[in-house]
């Protein structure tokens, strides 16, 4: 299990210290899809970066099966790097503009799996199939793809090492609403097939209600509610959660 244990992160900016994350705890369990909901500035991105092991917590610890994964653990431990993967918010800027789709997806394979060329090619092809990217896009560059396709490439990259922990930062932001639906379906499918622990960060409660096995709500750096989601929004009782639920309704 990947556990954030009472983590705190304070950022120093022009004389003012702002606590991005305050004493937050979150556990990611294999097979469970957790959605972390919060407005922008709630600290959810910072928390997920600590869970991914790319930001060090100021206080508290992030443990994977009991061992701390704070930097520079990822750089030193290839197995750790392969086990915990993250898909960044903006698909376009997360891809090297000079790399072809093939090369982008092959990168984690080359760095972390060291497969012979033939097996690498097979794996890339099967990943592209899994994320529903037509094989002929192999040689294209990021700029030539649509927003949805770029996001699929990023997802394929994250899946390459068959991670046990998969984190999505605002998986559908900037995507058209029909594309969003498809990407969410893809994420759900990927989650089921891999049995991984999946974490999705979003500001949209609708996404949480649609996708989650577990919903955690974050506000001003703190996790105010964390529940298993049965399908009934009424199970969320914290006033802020209820506020977010209300805001979903355009007639509110």
């Amino acid at each position, binding site marked *: 299990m990947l556990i954030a244990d009472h983590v705190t992160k304070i950022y120093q900016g022009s004389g003012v210290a702002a606590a991005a994350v305050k004493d937050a705890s979150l556990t990611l369990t294999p097979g469970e899809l957790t959605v972390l909901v919060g*407005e*922008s500035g709630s600290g959810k991105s910072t928390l997920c970066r600590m869970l991914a092991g790319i930001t060090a917590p100021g206080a508290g610890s992030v443990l994977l099966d009991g061992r701390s994964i704070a930097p520079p653990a990822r750089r030193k431990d290839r197995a750790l790097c392969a086990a915990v993967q993250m898909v960044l918010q903006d698909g376009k800027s997360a891809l090297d503009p000079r790399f072809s789709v093939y090369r982008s997806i092959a990168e984690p394979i080359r760095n972390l799996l060291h497969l012979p060329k033939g097996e690498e090619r097979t794996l890339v092809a099967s990943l592209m199939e899994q994320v529903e990217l037509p094989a002929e896009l192999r040689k294209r560059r990021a700029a030539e793809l649509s*927003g949805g396709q770029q996001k699929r490439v990023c997802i394929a990259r994250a899946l390459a090492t068959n991670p046990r922990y998969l984190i999505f930062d605002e998986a559908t932001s900037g995507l*058209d*609403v*029909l*594309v*969003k*639906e498809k990407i*969410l*379906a893809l994420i*759900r499918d990927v989650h089921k097939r891999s049995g991984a622990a999946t974490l999705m960060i979003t*500001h*949209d*409660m*609708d*996404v*949480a*209600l*649609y*996708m989650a096995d577990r919903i955690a709500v974050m506000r001003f750096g703190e996790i105010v509610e964390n529940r298993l989601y049965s*399908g009934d*929004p009424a199970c969320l009782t914290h006033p802020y959660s209820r*506020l*977010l639920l209300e*805001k*979903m309704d*355009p*007639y*509110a």
Partner: protein
Amino acid sequence: MSELVVDNLTITLRKENRALVSGLSFRLGAGESLVLLGQSGCGKSMSCRAVMGLLDRRFAVDGSITLDGTELTGLRERERSGIYGRRIAFIPQNPMTALDPSVPVERQMGETLSLHTNLSRAQRRGRLRQALAGAGLGETERVCASRPGMLSGGMLQRVLIAMALSTGAELVIADEPTTALDVVHRNEIVDTFAALQERGMSVLFVTHDFAAALRLDGKILVMRDGAVVERGSTREVYALPRHEYTKALVRAAALSKGAGHADR
């Protein structure tokens, strides 16, 4: 009675002879709101830019766009300044790009006002503050003294809305005003536009966010590949979509309501 009439608007990309918008027609009266809804590439932003007269020579514009009978396509420079900025205000998707980052807000708003009206300095000051309050901005003094970089995206949008209010614009065109905002703040900004309607302004709203359209609660045109696939009152179209595409958009707009849970 200020009415925007778009009649059979067709926009073609000259080089490829490809129609980006075909046969768009609608009427927007004073105090009414109209949402152009669709995904990227459907032509809604292009149509907006055509109304704003912002299309360059790469595009061929056919059909007519009239504001109170005045034809907007093919206006000359001098005539343009009387209309754009004064009678028609534009709120772009990224408000930061519409303002000079180095000049305090009050001065920029004041400039626009002095360009389009004959008010004295004191009168301008008063009107600006009224407008800012009307746009839902609380600390008017602080906002006036700030530079655009110090204000959030949402606040900058309200500044632009205030500028529209202050010049007494008849028509406000907003390009994806909710896209950059959290769902939580969406309703508030839409309410600000609704408040403009109550003052008699027409609101033309371009978005892919059905929920924002519903909140605005006016008329809607659903666009796809440059053409209108469905039109009507937003509530009715949402409740009873007829076109397949509209049905898909309705379902995708509130996934948890429509489809329930992805698993079930």
